[in-house]
């Protein structure tokens, strides 16, 4: 990774504690739910079991209509003892029926334990279907969580990015964000006179930008560490080391650092201040509140940094995984806070009950039980699906938390607590 030395100020970072039993999160397969929508000419084929199929239809609440662009090639009992797993016919059907430009082949736990040689399986399929690339992606729950597998998917796209010639100095934004955000980030950069080559991933394979030795790779969120390292290693591209463009504070730092790669010193202080002024009604709901982030998707570090800037007190920031180098600037901004990697969920429940935070940012299944105990919550997964990036995304971001906090204040004035039965936890 090539990093301009002046972008690495030596300031203290938050200490990271690591727990690793009792950590709960979605497995890598779930990245499909969002990426298949983002990449409109793709098909996500999961080599999995009934469990994986059930996860996909339940956890994501994804309903299958006439032509889904993902499915599970299901390993059944008979396949366990078969000499080889053959999915040629399945892939053939997908190609005929869906005509995708690209097929992502996701592994899962069972083939991983069976030691299926996944890479060569994909290679074989690639030879058989030479006009539709089949890309192997690591997504098993033995090692990968939702956002880590998103990184694996993005990593596999490099081969479709044309090579940019030396001297083509433009920005490639890295990370799957929705179109509202891409349009805005591009506009913002161009307003500052910073040339943009494109985004990885793009909506279709054909739209992927060229990447070369003078490309500046700008990560949009904390879960593209693997792909960005690869892209920079294989194409010699430069990597922006900054905060992520989440919240007015992060966005300002992000663009100022980006400009520096083009030899420009810009000051976005006024722009940032203006955004904060616009957000005041929402920020005032967050200010002074005690917030606990249980942690399951890796967006936690920049989210915590934003909430801290809003004046919230962060009791704990849990997160699945910290890459000390890639997340350095965010860790610096969190100095003094308790950051826990792969937190133990059971310990967190005990702590939350004792500390009674004003808001717990947590996964789908813990939210309602916390609410039942009178603790306000915000779904962490919702943050992933909300267009929170850049200056204009800040309002949606602040709103997520403000709404959760305000709602409780409003509900509190109604005298209906008697309708809620006592906590039933035994």
């Amino acid at each position: 990774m090539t990093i301009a030395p002046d972008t690495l100020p030596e300031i203290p970072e938050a200490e990271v504690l690591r727990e690793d039993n009792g950590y709960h999160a979605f497995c890598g397969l779930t990245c499909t739910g969002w990426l298949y929508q983002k990449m409109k000419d793709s098909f996500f084929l999961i080599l999995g079991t009934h469990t994986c199929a059930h996860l996909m239809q339940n956890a994501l609440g994804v309903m299958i209509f006439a032509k889904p662009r993902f499915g599970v090639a299901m390993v059944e009992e008979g396949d366990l003892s078969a000499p080889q797993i053959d999915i040629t016919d399945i892939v053939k059907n997908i190609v005929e029926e869906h005509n995708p430009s690209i097929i992502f082949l996701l592994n899962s736990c069972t083939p991983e334990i069976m030691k299926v040689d996944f890479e060569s399986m994909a290679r074989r399929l690639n030879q058989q279907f030479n006009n539709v690339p089949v890309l192997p992606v690591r997504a098993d729950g033995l090692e990968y969580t939702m956002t880590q597998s998103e990184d694996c998917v993005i990593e596999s796209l490099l081969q479709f990015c044309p090579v940019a010639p030396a001297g083509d100095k433009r920005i490639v934004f890295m990370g799957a964000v929705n179109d509202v955000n891409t349009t805005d980030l591009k506009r913002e950069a161009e307003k500052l006179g910073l040339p943009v080559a494109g985004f990885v991933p793009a909506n279709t394979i054909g739209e992927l930008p060229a990447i070369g030795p003078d490309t500046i790779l700008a990560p949009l969120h904390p879960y593209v560490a693997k792909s960005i390292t690869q892209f920079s290693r294989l194409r010699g591209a430069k990597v922006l080391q900054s905060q992520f463009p989440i919240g007015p504070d992060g966005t300002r730092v992000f663009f100022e650092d980006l400009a520096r790669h083009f030899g420009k010193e810009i000051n976005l202080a006024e722009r940032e201040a203006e955004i904060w002024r616009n957000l005041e009604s929402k920020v005032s709901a967050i200010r002074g509140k005690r917030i606990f982030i249980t942690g399951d998707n890796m967006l936690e570090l920049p989210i915590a940094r934003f909430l801290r800037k809003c004046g919230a007190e962060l009791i704990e920031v849990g997160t699945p995984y910290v890459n000390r180098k890639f997340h350095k600037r965010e860790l610096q901004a969190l100095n003094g806070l308790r950051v826990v990697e792969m937190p133990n969920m059971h310990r967190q429940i005990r702590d939350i009950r004792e500390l009674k935070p004003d808001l717990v940012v947590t996964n789908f299944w813990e939210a309602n039980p916390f609410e039942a105990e009178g603790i306000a919550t915000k779904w962490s997964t919702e943050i992933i699906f909300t267009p929170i990036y850049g200056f204009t995304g800040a309002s949606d971001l602040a709103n997520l938390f403000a709404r959760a906090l305000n709602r409780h204040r409003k509900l509190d004035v109604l005298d209906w607590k008697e309708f809620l039965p006592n906590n039933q936890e035994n």
Partner: protein
Amino acid sequence: MRMSFWEYQGTAHTGVARVASSMNGVHAVAYSPVGDCYINSMFTMMEREKRFPPVHTSVLDLKTMGMGINRLPESLREVSHDHNPDLIVVTQTCSSSLLQEDYGSLARQANIPNEVLIYAPNPFRVEEDESANGLLTVMVEQFAAMKLPPTSKPSVNIIGPISLGFHHKHDLLSLQRMLETMGIAVNVVFPLGATVADIKKLPQAWATIAPYREMGADAAIVLEKMHNIPAVTSAPIGVVATRKWVREVLESLNKFASGNGLTFDLKEPAIAAFSMDQKSAPSGLPWFTITADVQGYSSKKAFVFGDFTHAVAITRMLATELDMQIVGAGTYNRKLANEFRELVKPYTDNIICSSEFAEVRKAIGETLPDIVMGTQMERHTSAEFDIPCATISNPTHIEDFSLSYQPFLGYDGSNFITDRVYHTCTLGLEKHMIEMFGDAGLGVEEARLKANERGKIQVAPEPEAREQELEAYKIAEELRAKATQLAVESGAAVAVKAPPVAAITAELVWTDEAQKALKQIPFFVRPKVQKRVEEYARSHGYSLITLDLVYEVREKAQQ
């Protein structure tokens, strides 16, 4: 190896989790990769369960696997420490089952005071319902072995109602209401709300009620074998079945009483005793069917699909009590296929036992019924074909966990099911009226439906409220746009748009007159009629569709 886009059932460990989540003082520990903890969200989100689900994931990952470490003992100790349950059920999932761990010895290593039950059926063979049902049986064998003296007054066990069961909580209430009317006490409900101590009390009842064939009936039969407690395993769905069930329950109690030298003098209460006001009929179903405006039901075609219990009972109810034609009936429970065929054979020749939704979709497409009674999946299929559909079975959706009382069992259940059929069919009935009285006002209806697709703000709200309204409106608009985009993308567009006028196919030519006739048909049945006419034309070798031909098909259809 097969391609799966959607499954009717979850896996074995989902079944175990449902049993644990139903009970008090019982914890499940699944040895599995971290991602398999996803099932917990089904309890707290679909069913809005308030507790943290008592289902613990003992994490299997590559690192510990490589080091030869199994975290199960540590997890058991954590559960014991945090919750101190009466019973811990240890189970596995697809991937962890391949490792063939010795759970018994791992559990012993944990060295905890709590009772541990190893229940790890082969996840590649056993699905959700079978797994839960099997666990109920094992628990009865294990904890209800000790004989107890019968209760002094007649009492029954209810085995079956379970967490995430289809309308089970409402069913339970309906059963309890009826039993109270009959003067019968409920000894134990299992598994919903039960503890291990409750299971031990099962042997003191006079009879066991187990209304769901795939959930709890086996446990009831085991209890019968162990202690001579009669099992009533029929499902009181529909008025006829409910009345029979009432008599069956009384007979069983009588049988138990005479076998045990107890006195028993309960009689079947007067029918009105079961109603809310103790005066009227407990179910309006018989009169509903007799009323003149429901005569049209005799010509209505229904397609039924679901789990075993609901599919069998609803088929019978629609055929015998609502006088409908059954054009197809099926279940995804393939293991009970033979029994299913036997039971629905009197009502239809078209029987589908399959867990592939595409096969069910094909059958619906071929029979084009007037109403589908199915699962969440059939709702989507029916939307594609523009056929009204009501859900009668799992798998379902959050909307079936209703706040109001919506039972399927008993007299109350008969009312609810009939209402559901009626509301679902209403569009069809309107069609019937239109056929009789002409299509006046239809254009207006079509326009109204279109107008409804736009936002909903009609009244000017208060100034402060207005800002919130607008905000809500904005969000709704965004969501709508997203949903439309998704629908278009996934090819569901046909389901959200009013069907276009005659997308005339290439090889068939419609004359102007025939097209005009087609346009006169209400838009909501138009595609069906078009399809029928075109199929008829093709099968009879016509390439020109004339007005006469349209009428010819109409005549044929009425025969």
